[in-house]
């Protein structure tokens, strides 16, 4: 029994490392080791459902900030943030004409961080519109809509429209003067469409003017209808980015 025959003693850091990354539970969640070797780094991306939106390797120019300014990714990040804050807001909000305004007031004064939550949701919504617009400009000015990416540009235009509609339907929900009259002005514009104007406006509002029916329609579209539709289009959009060969670069 000689000490010399034993394996070399592990350092403290290695012990901690093994304890965290080489135990049974960790390895049941993350199949790969800690991504500190090229092999593990690629596996980490390829075997993770969230990260596998990415390829494992990309061209050097694509990680240059000035090539994309992260605008598309940030638009998606805003969507995620809006979903999280939106779900939390739904705990406190009832879409009825009697309660809606009261609920927003209560959220601002009685709920801890309620005002912050509402502010986050609102400013993120504005930020998303601006980011989507800037993303569209980035794609245009880098000529990234050219073949083979024609269709993904069309999907992008649809996503832009859906973003505006999501924001517009959310605008009514606080049921204050700002909301009410903005939606009145907005839906009047819809009503001026030739041939189907009045019908479209009626369909949107569930009546001839903004009232309880409009509130429940806008709410339903805002919290489930449009998010579902936009999620589908986003999935197609991201998928097509990969399928069409990643980011555009000179041929």
């Amino acid at each position: 029994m000689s000490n010399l025959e034993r394996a070399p003693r592990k350092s403290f850091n290695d012990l901690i490392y093994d304890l965290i990354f080489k135990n049974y539970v960790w390895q049941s969640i993350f199949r790969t080791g800690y991504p500190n070797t090229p092999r593990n780094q690629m596996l980490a991306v390829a075997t993770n459902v969230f990260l596998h939106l990415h390829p494992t390797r990309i061209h050097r120019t694509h990680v240059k900030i000035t090539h994309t300014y992260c605008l598309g990714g940030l638009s998606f990040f805003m969507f995620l943030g809006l979903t999280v804050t939106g779900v939390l807001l739904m705990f406190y909000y009832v879409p009825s004409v009697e309660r809606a305004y009261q609920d927003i007031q209560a959220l601002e004064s009685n709920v801890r961080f309620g005002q912050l939550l509402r502010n986050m949701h609102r400013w993120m919504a504005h930020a998303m519109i601006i980011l989507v617009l800037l993303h569209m400009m980035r794609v245009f000015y880098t000529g990234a809509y050219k073949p083979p990416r024609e269709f993904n540009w069309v999907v992008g235009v649809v996503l832009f429209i859906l973003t505006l509609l999501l924001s517009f339907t959310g605008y009514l929900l606080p049921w204050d003067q700002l909301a009410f009259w903005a939606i009145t002005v907005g839906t009047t514009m819809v009503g001026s469409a030739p041939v189907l104007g009045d019908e479209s406006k009626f369909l949107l509002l569930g009546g001839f003017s903004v009232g309880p029916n409009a509130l429940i329609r806008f709410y339903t579209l805002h919290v489930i209808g449009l998010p579902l539709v936009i999620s589908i289009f986003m999935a197609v959009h991201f998928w097509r980015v990969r399928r069409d060969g990643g980011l555009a670069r000179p041929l």
Partner: protein
Amino acid sequence: MVSRAAAAIRTRPRREREAEVLVWPDLVFIEFISALIFSIALMVLSAMVNAPLLNRADPDTTPNPSKAPWYFLNLQELLLHMEPAWAGVIVPTIALVLLAAIPYWDRDQDGQGVWFGTKFAGRLTVFGFTAATMVTSLLIIWDGSLHVIWTENIIRGLGLNSDFSWPGGLDWFRNLRGFDTGIPWESLGFTIGGFTMFEDWRAIPLGIPGTTTDPWLLNLNFPSFLSQQLIPVATMVGLPIVFVLFCKALGWIHTRRDIALLIFSAFIGVYLTTTIVGTAFRGQGQDLKPPWDIVVLEE
């Protein structure tokens, strides 16, 4: 027959491994940092600025001015200058369809993946944006009759004529509606054969006489059609054409991509100008006002 798109994929050069980086950590790190920066920035903004909440909605109290959400104020701005059907629905629809159609029209592979990829892209972008912004602002000033007020004030202010007012002969140039009200249309009526088509400019029967019960065959109010539809639409169609011809004459346009750059930049200019004017420069009754003079009244 291989489609163009498929051919484009196939002709990509073989990957050069040296030119590639790993997504983890190179890209994931950037994504994480940008998400972090935005989270912090929005958190700080939300801690400092509260989302607006006015009085409870009241259908009987109309705020003056009433405005749509800011991202639709460009359309609300258009609404002041033309027939609502054009401003609120037809123009945005056509604009979005044209926007979506760009890649099917400009299929050239040149300049792909590079900022401002053509030789004159920078100039076209700056020119398109600046010229469109200026022309839009001038058109808004003109339709807001600011040139009338300014001319009157300047002539009175200089003491040239202390009670000068815009000459009646130039009433047609007060604003867009001046074409409707400032010209004696009634006196211009005439008859073609036995068909008294133009006996009254304000009610030209459309279609076959005697069938005007059909809503599609209502009378056409010609002067109003001119000021609310013909001139605005001709302007929106004509100005881009003028822009393109002008840049072509300067030798800046060689490909469809150049035209797309010019028109897209002009579109961004118009989009921004109308949004800013609609948001910050429209007071009561949608009159043009500097931002600090805008008060919302509830009526």
